[in-house]
């Protein structure tokens, strides 16, 4: 399978897309944020140095979710008052994409989900219940977070953000939901918590002394 190849409009380096539907990527060399247009790549911004983080996952980490294999192609970093977390953009071997988050080694996999009448951020409070796809979700925590950077390929344009509110909803099973208020229109992600061992991750980062 040939991968789409282009050159960075900023530094001329070769840009390879692992996932054909990627909308945005970051040049590995000059850290330019590049957005795909119909004809070429356009530089829209620049990533400052990413803050150090302790995730064992990195771009090109491979794993399995159910019977599907995936590879990590990009990420968004967020910070909040208790630290930071990553939303890793993963490409499944059936061509779909999903998000693998790791917040202090708590792993979860989620998918973008279409739903109508999502509540505005100001209307949500802890304990409130919502039902999506016949599953009841309870708001457990509302996290004021801030955008701290991007890396690799993303399925949408995502850069130049500042404060972002996330609403976490839990269930009595491993299922959970997240309401993402990055954009004027809220976005819903439905997923489940997963055990590190279940993901069968390969090509992980190594840690000094471990």
């Amino acid at each position, binding site marked *: 399978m040939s*991968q789409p*190849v282009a050159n960075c409009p900023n530094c001329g380096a*070769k840009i*390879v897309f692992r996932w054909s539907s990627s909308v945005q990527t970051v040049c*590995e*060399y000059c850290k330019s944020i590049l957005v795909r247009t119909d004809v070429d790549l356009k530089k829209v911004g620049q990533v400052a140095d*990413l803050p*150090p*983080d*302790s995730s*064992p996952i*990195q*771009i*090109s980490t491979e794993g399995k979710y159910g019977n599907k294999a995936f590879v990590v192609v990009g990420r968004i970093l967020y910070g909040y008052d*208790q*630290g*930071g977390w990553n939303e890793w953009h993963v490409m499944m071997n059936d061509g779909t994409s999903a998000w693998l988050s790791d917040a*202090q*080694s*708590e792993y979860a996999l989620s998918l973008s989900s279409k739903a109508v009448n999502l509540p505005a951020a100001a209307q949500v409070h*802890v304990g409130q219940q919502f039902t999506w796809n016949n599953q009841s979700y*309870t708001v*457990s*925590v509302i996290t004021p977070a801030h955008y701290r950077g991007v890396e690799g390929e993303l399925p949408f344009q995502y850069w130049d953000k500042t404060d972002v509110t996330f609403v976490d909803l*839990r*269930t*009595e*099973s*491993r299922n959970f939901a997240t309401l993402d208020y990055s954009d004027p229109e809220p976005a819903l992600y439905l997923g489940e*918590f997963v055990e*590190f061992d279940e993901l069968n991750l390969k090509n*992980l*980062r*190594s*840690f*000094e*002394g*471990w």
Partner: protein
Amino acid sequence: MSAGTPPLSGPPKPQARALNCPKCGAAITLHSFGQAVTVVCASCHSILDAKDPNLAILQRFEAATRDVKPLIPLGTRGKLRGTDYELIGFQRRSTQVDGITYYWHEYVLFNPYKGIRYLSEYNGHWNDISICKTLPIADGGGANYLGETYKHFQSADADTDFVLGEFPWQVRVGEKAAVTDYVHPPRVLSGEKLDKEVTWSIGEYMYGREIWESFKLPGDPPAPIGVYENQPSPVTLNVTGMWVAFAAFAVFLLVLMAVFDMRAKKEPVLQETYQYNRAESKAETSFVTDVFELTGHTSTVEVKTFAPVSNHWIYLNYALINQDSGQAWDFGREVSYYSGYDSDGSWTEGKQHDSVVIPSVPPGHYYLRIEPEADPSLPNIPYTVEVIHDVPVFGIYGIAFLALLVPVVIISFRAYTFERSRWSESDHPPMELSSSSGDDE
């Protein structure tokens, strides 16, 4: 590597960070690669903001508790359920019940891939604890977690009064959390409420020796005191199930008894009434009965004696003799019956009937030799001797029944006393605890 492989310019390999306490200058190392939110200076007991490059001081606490020493030293690595962990944090917590302060200890364990895990220790009892990934359903009396029912054990306020090392949360000394424990031994489900947020964790009981093996600690773990809330009962058998099995066995015994009773021939082979006469029996006291035949297989023989004695006794020396082989079974039976009246009312002792069963008598021709003796005050008395071949014997079933009943009762008693000790420490102590007198068992 093919073209397009990203250059190796990724973030450097995370390393433990060496810093200095802004208060006293002591060396501080962060082992958890950025997962720590707070870190405590071991020298001056300043609680520092681990997320701040300058380690801003968040709180200082007086270490009047300098003698509080973690049983597992900070920095120790061990293998817990197959994963390597490093001990990065320690805190002592306390709760007050009826004016008494109880202390327990919590240890923070870290693995860069698996994350954070906890150990708790109270009076030599350990728990392996992790944060719940799914929400339990809880009410006052109990909770349900992953399909299992947990019973409410205790609700109490937990203070943090001593901290050491790194914590993946904003730890503070003096902070009070409302802790509610639900148990399903060997597991414990705890809800810890701080402000408005409840954090649920699930713990599994561990023995000190398992911890000592995991972390290769020298010496012996402190011996556990008492019974802990989620300590597994030494009675691993299901007591109810055991009684059900016992009842099934008892029914089986009854059926077996009924079958053997039905299959027994219970064949009368001799029934004769004799007269004891003191005057006549002076010279030759013994005599023999008619010969009777025992047919079929080797079986039991029952010899019944009846004498209408009243405040007398009669004693019969029996011999069951095989006419063909000469083999003999000697036995003596007494028939006595007394009755009277005293200050307690009327009383009786003994019976006019007697019965004895001789086991395993082979088939053949037999007779009884009888030598009667009687109360000197008794001049003469009739007595009836009855011989029945192939009667069922039930004594063995009684022994089997008791042999099974005794361990079942002992195990049930042990399970009961263990559970009573467990629940006596809870918010729901069993009743009649103080008034029970038969406790020296």
